C-alpha cells in the first residue's frame, strides 16, 4: 500500500478526500475530550483540579515522541528505499512535532509550579524533552537551509536518524535517574497503573491529537507538493513552447518528485 501511495498525483486525490473527514473527526474527538477533561473527570484527591492539565500535557508528550519517531521512520524510508513522498512527509511533520513538544513543556511548567513549587527544574526528563525541542528546531532549520530542497531533505533525513537516540533517553530517563518528574503510569510493563476515570479522557485526547496530526500532516504535504509543482513550472516558464517540448521529450520533468 505504501508503494501504491507513492504516486504523488494519487496521494493528492486521496488526501483531498481524507483531509476533510480527518479534520472533522479531529474536531469532534477533541470536543468530546475537552468535555471529559474539564467537566466529567473527577479532581484528584492530592492535586485537585490542577490534574486537568495532565489531559493536555501527557497526550502532547506522547505526540512529541511519536511524531519524532514518524520522522525518523520516514527519513529511513527516504534514504533506503527512495520513496518520493517520504522526505516530504518528514518535512511536513516536523513543525507539528515541535508544536506538541512546546505545548508539553509549557503545560508541564504550568503544572509543575503548583505541584513542585518551581516553573522549571533541570531534571533528566525535562532536560531531554527540551533537547527534543531543539532537535526539532534544528531539523527544521537544516531542511530549509539549502537552496536545493532535495539536498535539504537528504541532510535532514540523516539528522533525524542521528537524533533518534534521544527518544529512549527521554522514555527511560525517569527510571534511570532520580528525577522529580513522576515515573510512567500508563505505558509500562504490567499495564496502566492509573484509574479508569482518568485514563479515558487521556486516551480520548490522545486520539484527538493524533487525528489533528494526521489532518495537519496531509495539509502540509499537499502544500509542499503544490509548491514543488509551482517551482517546476516557474523553471520551465522562461523557455519557448517548442524548445520546451523538445527538452521535455528528451528529459521529462516530474514536478512532484523531489
Amino acid at each position, binding site marked *: 500500500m505504501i508503494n501504491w501511495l507513492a504516486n504523488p498525483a494519487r496521494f493528492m486525490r486521496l488526501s483531498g478526500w481524507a483531509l476533510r473527514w480527518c479534520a472533522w473527526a479531529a474536531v469532534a474527538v477533541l470536543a468530546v475530550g475537552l468535555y471529559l477533561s474539564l467537566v466529567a473527570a473527577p479532581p484528584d484527591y492530592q492535586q*485537585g483540579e490542577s490534574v486537568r492539565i495532565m489531559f*493536555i500535557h501527557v497526550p502532547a508528550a506522547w505526540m512529541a515522541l511519536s511524531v519524532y519517531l514518524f520522522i525518523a521512520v520516514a527519513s529511513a524510508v527516504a534514504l533506503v528505499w527512495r520513496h518520493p513522498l517520504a522526505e516530504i512527509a518528514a518535512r511536513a511533520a516536523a513543525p507539528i512535532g515541535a*508544536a506538541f513538544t512546546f*505545548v508539553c513543556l509549557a503545560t508541564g511548567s504550568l503544572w509543575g509550579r503548583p505541584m513542585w513549587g518551581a516553573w522549571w527544574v533541570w531534571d533528566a526528563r525535562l532536560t531531554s524533552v527540551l533537547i527534543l525541542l531543539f532537535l526539532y528546531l534544528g531539523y527544521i532549520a537544516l531542511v530549509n537551509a539549502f537552496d536545493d530542497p532535495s539536498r535539504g531533505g537528504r541532510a535532514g533525513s540523516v539528522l533525524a536518524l542521528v537524533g533518534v537516540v534521544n527518544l529512549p533517553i527521554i522514555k527511560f530517563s525517569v527510571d534511570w535517574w532520580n528525577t522529580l518528574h513522576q515515573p510512567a503510569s500508563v505505558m509500562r510493563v504490567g499495564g496502566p497503573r492509573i484509574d479508569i476515570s482518568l485514563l479515558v479522557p487521556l486516551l480520548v485526547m490522545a486520539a484527538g491529537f493524533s487525528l489533528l496530526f494526521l489532518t*495537519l500532516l496531509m495539509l502540509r504535504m499537499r*502544500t509542499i507538493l*503544490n509548491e514543488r509543482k*509551482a517551482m517546476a513550472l516557474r523553471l520551465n516558464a522562461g523557455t519557448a513552447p517548442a524548445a520546451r517540448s523538445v527538452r521535455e521529450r528528451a528529459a521529462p520533468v516530474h514536478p512532484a518528485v523531489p
Partner: protein
Amino acid sequence: MGGIGAFLAMGGYAGFVWPAYGVAFVVLAGLAAHSAWRYRQSAVTLDRLQQAHGAKR
C-alpha cells in the same frame, strides 16, 4: 451561578489550568491556521502558474 463560578475557579488552580489549556489551544490552532493559510497560498499560486502555462501553449 456557583456551578460556573466553581468551574472557572478550578479549585484555586485557575491561574494554571486555564493558561495551560489556553497555550495548547493557541499553539495548535495557530499551527492549523498557518498551515491552512500556506495551503491556500500554494493552491492559488499553482493555479495562476498553470493558467499562464496553459495560455502560453
